[in-house]
Structure formats: structure tokens, C-alpha cells
């Protein structure tokens, strides 16, 4: 593996080819906030809270640290006025959905985000996709998935699969940064599982 030297916040960091900026930063104990990142999962790039500024050949631009591959001599700034503005807005947009999330509240404090900037939305999910991806990539069950697109996107338990698989697993529950996942599960359980399992029963 080729060794790559880059600079993060003025500090020389050693990385290897194929690593992302986020991985390089973590290996050097430099903190970059994340919401949709998880070591066991493929980088997703959904929350954008990990946005940092990189400078390549004199050109500065914001990128997602969890996806951006390290390059020789890359200069990374994990905090700047612009980065902070982006993170603040992202937090405010998410707090409209999940105002009680401790994870979001802590970050909000750091970035001066106002949890009441936008009108509250009834959904508590921030659509980080940790549960969906954990179930697909690690458990390979696909019991929970995304449905619909754009502003209507939601997570949804697939009753046929989850009524069989979820009882003994529930490994995705602690990944959720809000309490939405468990609520969605309980809802699916009460509404759909009984009919899904009774269907199974009658089929047998």
C-alpha cells in the first residue's frame, strides 16, 4: 500500500492509498463529526455533517470527509467559517425532525445551531440510513429499507422479512441517533406483523 502524506488542520498526517479523509483524520485523533458514518458500513455520504474544506492545487472546495479519498499533499481544514456555517444549517434542518436527539443537541451546542429555526416536522427520522445499511450490509436481511423518494423518503420495515428476522436481532436499535427506529418497529409490529404472521400461518 502506497503511503500518502497529507495535511489536516496544519498537521502532517500519514495515510495509505484508498483511505478517506475521515479515516485519516481519525487515525491522527482529529475529530470530524459524523451522523451517517459507521466503521462496519460502506461510506454513505448522506448527512453531510462531515463536510470539510480541501485544497487541491490552490483550489478550495467543500467535500464530504467520509467519502473523499486522500491524496498526496492534500490540505484539509476540518473547521472554517464556511464549514461551520454548513454544519450549523444541516443541524438546524435535522433538528426540525428530531429536536430531542442527544447527538444532535450536543453538536448544536458546538455549532450554535438553533433547534427552533425551522418549524417542526412530524417525522423523527433523520434518514441517516444506519439501520437500513446495517441490515443489508452486515446482516444481509434487508428487513428495513427506504421507501419513496425526495422529501417523502422514509424508512419502512418489510413485514414479511422483519416479522421473522427482527425478534432475535434488533442490532440496529442502538445505532439510531433518534428514537424513531424503535417507534417505527413497534408500529410495524402492531400493524403489520400480526397479519403477516397470520398469513404465514394460513398458508401453512
Amino acid at each position, binding site marked *: 500500500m502506497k503511503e500518502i502524506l497529507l495535511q489536516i488542520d496544519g498537521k502532517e498526517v500519514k495515510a495509505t492509498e484508498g483511505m478517506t479523509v475521515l479515516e485519516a483524520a481519525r487515525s491522527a485523533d482529529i475529530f470530524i463529526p459524523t451522523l451517517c458514518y459507521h466503521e462496519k458500513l460502506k461510506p454513505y455520504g448522506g448527512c*453531510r455533517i462531515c463536510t470539510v474544506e480541501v485544497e487541491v492545487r490552490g483550489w478550495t472546495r467543500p467535500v464530504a470527509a467520509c467519502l473523499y479519498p486522500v491524496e498526496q499533499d492534500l490540505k484539509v481544514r476540518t473547521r472554517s467559517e464556511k464549514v461551520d456555517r*454548513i454544519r450549523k*444549517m*444541516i443541524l438546524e434542518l435535522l433538528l426540525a425532525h428530531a429536536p430531542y436527539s442527544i447527538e444532535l443537541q450536543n453538536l448544536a451546542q458546538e455549532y450554535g445551531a438553533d433547534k427552533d429555526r425551522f418549524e417542526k416536522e412530524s417525522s423523527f427520522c433523520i434518514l441517516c440510513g444506519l439501520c437500513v445499511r446495517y441490515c443489508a450490509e452486515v446482516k444481509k436481511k434487508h428487513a428495513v429499507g427506504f421507501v419513496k423518494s*425526495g*422529501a417523502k423518503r422514509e424508512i419502512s420495515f418489510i413485514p414479511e422479512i422483519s416479522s421473522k428476522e427482527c425478534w432475535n436481532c434488533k442490532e440496529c436499535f442502538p445505532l439510531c441517533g433518534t428514537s424513531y427506529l424503535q417507534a417505527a418497529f413497534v408500529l410495524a409490529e402492531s400493524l403489520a406483523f400480526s397479519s403477516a404472521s397470520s398469513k404465514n400461518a394460513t398458508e401453512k
Partner: protein
Amino acid sequence: MPRIDSAAELEELRKGILSKRDPNKPYIAICAGMGCHGLSNDRIITAFEEEVKKQDLKKKVDIRATGCHGFCEKGPIVVIYPEQICYVEVMPGDVPEIVSQTVLGKKVIDRLIYTDPNTGEKAAHQSEIPFYKNQMQHLINNNTKIDPKSIDDYLAIGGYSALSKALLEMSPEQVLEEIKKSNLRGRGGGGFPAGKKWETARNAPGEEKYVIVNSHEGELGAFMDRAIFMGNPHSVLEGLIIGAYAIGSHQGFIYTRHDTPQLKNNIDIALAKAEEYGLLGENILGSGFNFNVEVHFDIGIFVSGESSALMKSIEGKNPEPRAKYIRTSVRGIWEKPSNLNNVETWANVPLIINKGSEWYASIGTERSKGTKLISLSGNIVNTGVAEVPFGTTIREIIYDIGGGIPNGKKLKAVHFGGPMGGSIPESYLDTPLDFDELAELGAPIGAGSMLVLDEDTNMVDVIRFFLDFLSNESCGKCVPCREGIRQMLKIVTNISEGNGREGDIQLLEEISEVAAAASLCALGKTASDPLLSTLRYFRDEYEANIK
């Protein structure tokens, strides 16, 4: 049909087709494009077929159901050759008269010819109608000359001669050089230099490479890709094969609309015919070059036209964009180098190879070369598809070709590029059609849809419409786009309903900045462009509704 194995055999075949055709034999070209199709032109086609049969003229008259002629406003359009007499708004009942009077009697039927609503002047021939007269057509003009289902028709107008030249007389490097020198820029929205993209894909490591036609055409108000691809599918295919040769690809994909079965049908026929003739498949034209094409249906959501989402969709996955820190021309479908171009971009390729990059680069402006297909819609007299050289002013397009604004209204704004584009006000009408000049004004041309808006238009409502569209048609994966658009739509809706609040404009600008900087794909990055262009030129309309 025996397959063609050399340039000589291709020319032999072409000669054979032409020798059986009498250039003076009358033929009736009936538009079967998207616009006219909606006007049940199939009844007209049937009527002509029946009339020709009834009068026993099968040997004397040819009928062609052709692709879009562009003048959709006046459809269904029927053109009688060789005189090029153009009839507009033809009804099935007119058909017997057209056959007897015009096709046989060579007389013009006054009632069916075009009358200029502004001057009252009549025009019997296509070339005299202002809509056509003021265009420069190098692509769409062939639509009236061919039946899209007939490869012989395409060969009769010189089809596949560029392919023969490229494969048999040029090296892949020479083809690439020619495209680079032509300065051809992508027509799908970004205006990225095609030659540069091809070169990246060509030089990218890996044996297996792909070339793709983007025929999703999701931009609202755009129908020029469909006009070209449905009307002249071989021209796009010929461009694609030439590109594949230059890039070193042996597998192509066509990503096309699932909701337009005639388009898919014409593409399928073109592929089958090209293969039968030895223009596709193994050892094309005896050159030793192999190339195959697969057709894929799009997912009917706007974001599936974005390159990385499109490629996921071809892989059979959800059309969700991915970060393109490594370009798709290096790592695309199944991680292989994949060169994606728009329908119109590909259609330009045979032209450049045939006529040379120098000729091509002589058309247009300093940095935007060739012609551009434009879809005209909104408050304009002539809706339809027009082709003009870059450098034509917006005023010329709207007034000389488009016939101006109907009902004596004044023009307020022209919106380019659909939901990721922007508007310019009347005072900028003398701006030339040019990728960079319009982008600088905040109204990038996008794929080429031009929505003309008259004085009665409320710009805030236009923006509300686009944001609403995007909030449904984005994928919803990333926060700045999904949540940013949600909130911008709420604010703009409030303003348009007269309930704007102090600070709303600043908040819109703040959300825009974050969406543009931090979104994952170009949809989110440019979703607020229409909004920003109207804040630039029509800010007072927002302010008027803020308490």
C-alpha cells in the same frame, strides 16, 4: 440482406438504394413525432395510406411517417416532396384533397398552408415559413427525409459514411483528436467538453469500458432528445459506435424513457437493422472492431438522469447518485470506465467526422460550437423544437423563430434549463446563446428547454413549481438537498401566498448556499439556481409579499 464487410460494399449498397429511388417521385412526410402523436396523427397516416391505396398510387407515391419536424405548434404537419409544400394542422378529412390536388395535381391548397399570425403572410413551402427559415439545421433537418424505422432511408442520405471513415480510415486517436478539436460540448446540461471526457475514459485503466447514451430527458419542457432519437435513431447510434471506437469500448448502453414506447421501438428496430447490416456487433464493416448495445429503461424520476444515478440504475440498483470524487469516466458502471453523453451530443459526432472539426468549429461562438436544439414552450406563439447555431441571440430565437408572445402580451422573462436552470429578464434578450455567457447571467442553458414567460407571470409561483418538482424528484438521500428543498419550498410557498416574513429572503439565500456547497450531487447543488436567478432579477416580487 447480406452483411456489409467493407467501405466499398457500403457504398455499393448505398448506390443500389439510391438507384432505385427517383428524386422526383412525390413523397408525403407525415410527422409522427411526440407533439403530433398527441394530436392523433396516426389517423392521418392511416388516411393517407388508405387514400393512396384507393387511388391505386402505391407505385407513384411514397408515404413516410417521420420523426418530429419541430413545428409542434402547428401539428400535425404534412410535407409534400419534392416541392416541399408544407401543410399545417392537417385533419384526416383533408387527406383525399391533398392527394388529388397537391400530390397529383401539383396545386397548393391555400387553406392548409401556414399563415403568419403577425403579418398575415402566407407561406406554402417549408423554407419560407419564418419558424424554419431562421434556423440552421444540421441535425433535425434529416427527420423529414427518413422513416426512422428504415435503415435504407438513413443510408440514402449518407448514413454510416462517418462510421466507415472513422473505422477504416482513421485511428482511434485521430477520431478522438477530431472531436477534441471540434470543441464539441455536452448537450445534456453541463456543457462539458466531450473530447476531454472521451480521453479520460480512454486513458482510464482497465480493459472493459462502456459508452452510454443518456436519453432520459428529464428536464421539464425539453423534448429535443426525443425528437432526434425517435426521428433519426441511426444518427445517435452511429455517433455512439464512433465514440466507442475512439474510447476503446465494446459495450454500449442506451438509457431511455420507459414512458415513450415508440422511442424504444424505433431504437430497437435501428439496433436490429444495424446488426443485420454488419454495422453493429462483430467485426463492424470488416474493420475488426466489435461493439454491442443494450437498451435499458429509465426509472421515471428526475434524478435518474444524473450520471452516477443512471449508472446505478443500469446495474439494476436504485438510481441514487454517488459522490463523484472519482469520475464516472474512470469508475462508472460496475466500477469500469464509463463514458456518458447526451443524445444530442452523440448525434453531433457523425457530422464532425464527415465534415471535419474545422468546419464544425466555424459554427457558433468562441467557446460554444455547432448548433443547439432548443425546445420552445410557455407563452410563445410557436412552441416546438428549433435548431440554431450558438451565438444566435435569445431575441432572435423568441421573435424570429418563435413568433413572439401571443395575445399581444409583453415578455417578462425567459427560463432556461428547467428545475436546475435560471431566468433572465427582458433586458437581457440580446444575449447570445452560449454556455458560458448564460451561465454567468445565472441562467445556464441546461439541456436546451426555453420557457418563455409573459408579463402576467408571477415569478415566485414559477420557482415554487420547480422546487415542488424537485422535492419529489430528488432521491432524498442527502440532507442539504432533501431538507433544504423542503424548507425553501415552504418559505417560497408562504411568500407566494402573501405570507412572507421579514428575513425570509436572507434565510432562502442561506439555505441555498449550504445546498449548493454540501449536497451530494448536482441536483442539490443547483436546485436553488432558479430561485437565485429570480432573487437577482425579480427580487421585488418576493419583497412585495413580505410583511
